[in-house]
């Protein structure tokens, strides 16, 4: 499900609307709304396909990690199952066991941050009426005074309603279907027929671990970091963790990179977690002001946003999550094309662009790629060449700027490791070795 039009309401009036004018030349839209169960279904289907192709993956349901022992050269796990316990030893453990991570607990590791006290009610409803595919955000609406509300469409004809309830509420009472229906009716108007599909109440935290790598245990997803839901950063950043980790762990296991490469997983993903926590904390502070003066400024922004365009960029009902640019990462080679576009500098995720017969990103992601624009790709062991002799407009704008030619060394996770106006194979080999954690 995609939306392009967003509307912002303040009190009883619509203050403005905006279009998510997405940049052209991307295979994927700027924003996709997909329920987690669809994602999980597709991930399991992919896993089954890999298994069928011979990958040694074992998916064990109802097996609970009950104990963890981290040694220098392995990790031992005690597993409880309905058929009884067993013990397993692993060379590496990726702990992605959620915000309450039992592995983190077992290892006695902290999870510090900020706890927010506001409660939010989620109601998924189906509607008969034609309701537009738009995102509506209300600040202080008549049907939920002093609080906020969000309405947006999900796949399968489901609308998600997210209502701020405030602090100190009676959770059980708020979840009563009659009470929820009354709230939703106030929100949609008396004439809209709807069915209540699902109701839940949540609160949230913004917090993270100090380190995402503890020897042979690597933490990923909510186990490592937790953000507020504003900006859709939770699952997104978990997937980015695995993008970052998978190729590094594979390279270490295959003996192609030193174990130290895994420290860069911690460094890079901590940078991303901090960025996500900062962005989602700012959204939270705008949506749920924590002091009288912060509410005064928030309301002033909203008030002005109706008449004064300048105030609209200050309205923060959640910023779309974008992948982190790993400036300063130890895996980067200093920029050899400093006059090139800043958005594709070393550390940046590659922007997509049309590339016959499809899109650039479809050609990246399997091993290191040496992309040559307007020049032949040199042969460098450990890299796959991708020659783009005549780059199109978008490729030019995103990778060349005014430069006539360039070389890009791109990591398996589609981040730029190095780029040059031109480079000798030995220079590229050094950059590759650096991106594998073998050369400082």
């Amino acid at each position, binding site marked *: 499900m995609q939306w392009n039009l967003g509307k912002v309401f303040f009190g009883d009036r619509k203050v403005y609307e905006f279009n998510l004018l997405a940049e052209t030349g991307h295979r994927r839209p700027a924003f996709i709304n997909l329920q987690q169960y669809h994602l999980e279904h597709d991930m399991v289907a992919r896993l089954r396909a890999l298994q069928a192709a011979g990958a040694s993956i074992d998916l064990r349901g109802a097996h609970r990690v009950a104990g963890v022992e981290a040694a220098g050269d392995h990790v031992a796990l005690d597993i409880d199952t309905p058929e009884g316990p067993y013990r397993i030893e692993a060379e590496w453990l990726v702990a992605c066991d959620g915000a309450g991570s039992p592995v983190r607990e077992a290892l006695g590791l902290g999870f510090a941050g900020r706890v927010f006290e506001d409660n939010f009610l989620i109601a998924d409803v189906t509607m008969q009426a034609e309701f537009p595919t738009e995102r509506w955000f209300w600040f202080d609406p008549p049907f939920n005074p002093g609080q906020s509300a969000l309405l947006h469409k999900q796949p399968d004809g489901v609308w998600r309603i997210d209502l701020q309830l405030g602090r100190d509420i009676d959770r059980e009472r708020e979840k009563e279907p009659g009470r929820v229906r009354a709230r939703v009716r106030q929100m949609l108007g008396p004439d809209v027929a709807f069915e209540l599909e699902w109701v839940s109440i949540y609160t949230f935290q913004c917090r993270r671990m100090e380190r995402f790598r503890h020897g042979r245990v690597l933490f990923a997803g909510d186990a490592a970091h937790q953000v507020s839901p504003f900006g859709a950063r939770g699952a997104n950043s978990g997937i980015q963790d695995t993008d970052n980790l998978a190729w590094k762990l594979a390279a270490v296991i295959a003996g192609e990179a030193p174990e130290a490469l895994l420290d860069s997983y911690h460094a890079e993903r901590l940078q991303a977690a901090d960025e996500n926590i900062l962005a989602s904390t700012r959204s939270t502070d705008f949506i749920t002001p924590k002091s009288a*003066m912060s509410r*005064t*400024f928030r*309301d*002033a*922004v909203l*008030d*002005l946003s109706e008449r*004064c365009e*300048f*105030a609209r960029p*200050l309205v923060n009902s959640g910023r779309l999550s974008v992948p982190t640019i790993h400036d300063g990462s130890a895996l980067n080679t200093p920029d050899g094309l400093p006059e090139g576009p800043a958005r594709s500098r070393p550390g940046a995720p590659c922007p997509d662009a049309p590339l016959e017969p499809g899109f650039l990103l479809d050609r990246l992601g399997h091993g290191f790629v040496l992309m040559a624009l307007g020049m032949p790709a040199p042969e460098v062991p450990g890299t796959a060449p991708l020659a783009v002799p005549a780059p199109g407009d978008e490729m030019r704008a995103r990778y060349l700027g005014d430069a006539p030619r360039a070389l890009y060394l791109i990591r398996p996770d589609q981040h730029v490791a190095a780029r040059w106006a031109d480079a000798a194979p030995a220079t590229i080999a050094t950059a590759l070795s650096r991106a594998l954690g073998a050369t400082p």
Partner: protein
Amino acid sequence: MTRLSLSPGIDAPDELYADLLAAHEGLSEAESAALNARLILILANQIGSRELFRAALDAARPR
């Protein structure tokens, strides 16, 4: 960036000051606070530069 100026720069000081007070006349404390907030945002937009705005914030801090 132009630097924050703390030397006299207002062309008609007495009139400007009177305008400021007049704008607040008859407002409740909350309405005045809201007016001030809108005013600050409008002036911040006029300044534009984050650096310059921070210099102004620093100069305004209680000491």
